[in-house]
């Protein structure tokens, strides 16, 4: 055994949430260690410059190997011949599901976690979402509201860099935007027609993404090669590796999970309704031969897993308080998707990042006051 090291804080995992935790804690001057189960990703692992003709099957994966090693991961759109190494091997990372149910658990085990191959779409939640469980009567009420997280969204967005168009929408609050990418000419026509058809009630806006449209915080602007899942050597999209991580690595093993998750009638009906609304909007902008469909994917495949250790203002119905602090273990903070009291249509990671930064700063404040 080497010399015994002591730390003020331990961060478990170096993905989207862990990277933010590590950054915030070290900036507050605490001695911090990051425990990461996966290996390092080096610039050589980024394969955005490898072309199909460089690969044996021209970008198609070896199917026998794939069905053995990544039968679940390979159902994810982003797991291809180039990027599959950023996804766990299913044969080495097993889990089970409750009988008769299915769950596609898409994971990345490496420094940076899934921030390496995420889709980079970021949308703020609003009070429509933080009040949704209360109004619908599903689950428990969120212990926080938009006002609690708003300054932390600002804080995170200023650091990571988000491209998008300010629209002043109540359901998708504006963010700290870098210049937007432009809608293409077809999209501009569709935007105008949709606005007209719905009297301004519906809107097409350019995607909001953690991609740099201009140099930002020492990272270069995007050069639009378009193969982001394969890594980005210019660090033009946000990943823990590119931006938040001071990088300390260790290894750990975990017990296998048994996952219980099923779609309910409510979700199925929402899917149907989305398909109807999408077709109606396409019709309204003048599209012809619109074919609507509903994809019946197993839970998990959207890779927005949330809940299991939710937050609420009451320890009877939740694991965490409104600061992501475990009721039972005061010096344990869980700031990833586990804390979410409900889900929303927005991609969640920006909210995890904002909650993480908020929780960490609260924890360090408590420590400073001698209360933790």
């Amino acid at each position, binding site marked *: 055994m080497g010399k015994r090291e002591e730390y003020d804080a331990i961060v478990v995992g170096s993905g989207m949430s862990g990277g933010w935790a590590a950054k915030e804690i070290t900036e507050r001057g605490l001695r911090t260690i990051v425990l990461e189960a996966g290996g390092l990703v080096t610039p050589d692992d980024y394969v955005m*410059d490898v*072309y*199909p*003709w460089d690969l*044996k*099957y*021209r*970008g*198609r994966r*070896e*199917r*026998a190997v794939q069905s053995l090693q990544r039968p679940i991961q390979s159902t994810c759109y982003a797991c291809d011949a180039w990027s599959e190494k950023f996804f766990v091997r299913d044969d080495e990372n097993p889990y089970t599901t409750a009988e008769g149910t299915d769950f596609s658990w898409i994971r990345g085990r490496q420094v940076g976690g899934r921030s390496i191959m995420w889709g980079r779409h970021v949308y703020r939640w609003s009070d429509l979402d933080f009040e949704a469980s209360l109004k619908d009567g599903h689950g428990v009420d969120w212990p926080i509201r938009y006002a609690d997280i708003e300054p932390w969204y600002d804080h995170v967005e200023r650091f990571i860099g988000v491209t998008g168009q300010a629209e002043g929408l109540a359901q998708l609050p504006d963010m700290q935007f870098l210049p937007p*990418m*432009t*809608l*293409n*000419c077809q*999209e*501009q026509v569709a935007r105008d027609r949709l606005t007209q058809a719905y009297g301004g009630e519906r809107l097409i806006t350019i995607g909001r993404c953690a991609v740099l449209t201009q140099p930002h915080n020492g990272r270069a602007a*995007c*050069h*639009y*090669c*378009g193969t982001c899942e394969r890594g980005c050597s210019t660090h033009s999209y946000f990943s823990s590796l590119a931006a938040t991580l001071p990088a300390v690595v260790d290894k750990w093993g975990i017990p296998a999970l048994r996952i219980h998750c099923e779609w309910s009638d409510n979700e199925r009906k929402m899917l149907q309704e989305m398909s109807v609304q999408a077709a109606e909007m396409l019709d309204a902008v003048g599209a012809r031969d619109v074919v609507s469909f509903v994809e019946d994917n197993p839970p998990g495949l959207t890779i927005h897993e949330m809940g299991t250790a939710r937050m609420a203002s009451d320890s009877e119905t939740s694991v965490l308080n409104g600061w992501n602090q475990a009721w039972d273990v005061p010096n344990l903070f869980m700031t990833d998707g586990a804390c979410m009291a409900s889900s929303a249509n927005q991609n969640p990671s920006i909210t995890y990042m904002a909650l993480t930064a908020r929780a960490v700063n609260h924890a360090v404040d408590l420590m400073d006051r001698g209360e933790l």
Partner: protein
Amino acid sequence: MDRRHLLKLLGTATAFAGWTPLQLEALLKPGGTRSIDVAFFTDAQREAVTAFCDLIIPTTDTPGAVETGVVEYIELMVSEWFDDGERERFMRGLTHFEEHTQSMTGTSFALAPEVRQVAILKGLEAEANSLRDADPDAEEEFFHQARGLVLHGYYTSEVGMKDEQMFIERPMFYEGDVPLIELIRTGGDR
């Protein structure tokens, strides 16, 4: 495909006439890997595939499918990448294709005059299309399999991507709304 199914087919049809031992072995050993160093097609099969490729993407003022290695690519994909069912369908389709050409023209596809070749391909395409229209979930017919391989092989080759498409070297750019005429004039350079 399972062994019993294959043996039944062997017993009842001449579908496998002219197949090499390697091809039959490939069918008998599901998931067995084959080395690409070993030729998979017979010479006659390769000639038929070559002629097929040449008609789908001929050489013009730019290189065609054959010159860009599409025949080798098809041989690799059929022998290694296809699953057993796909491989069986392709090989049976190829055999049928040759037999059909013989009966129509009295010679092999590779040696048939171009007008006859085109007519045969058109017939095959119409047949495959109508089968697909009747059942969109049906497994791909030989013609669609083969044409798909030609297109994929060609447009993922360096020549196919760089010379035939508007290939822009990194760093690239994004402007959502550019007059097409400007792009064509500059070959994508801005």
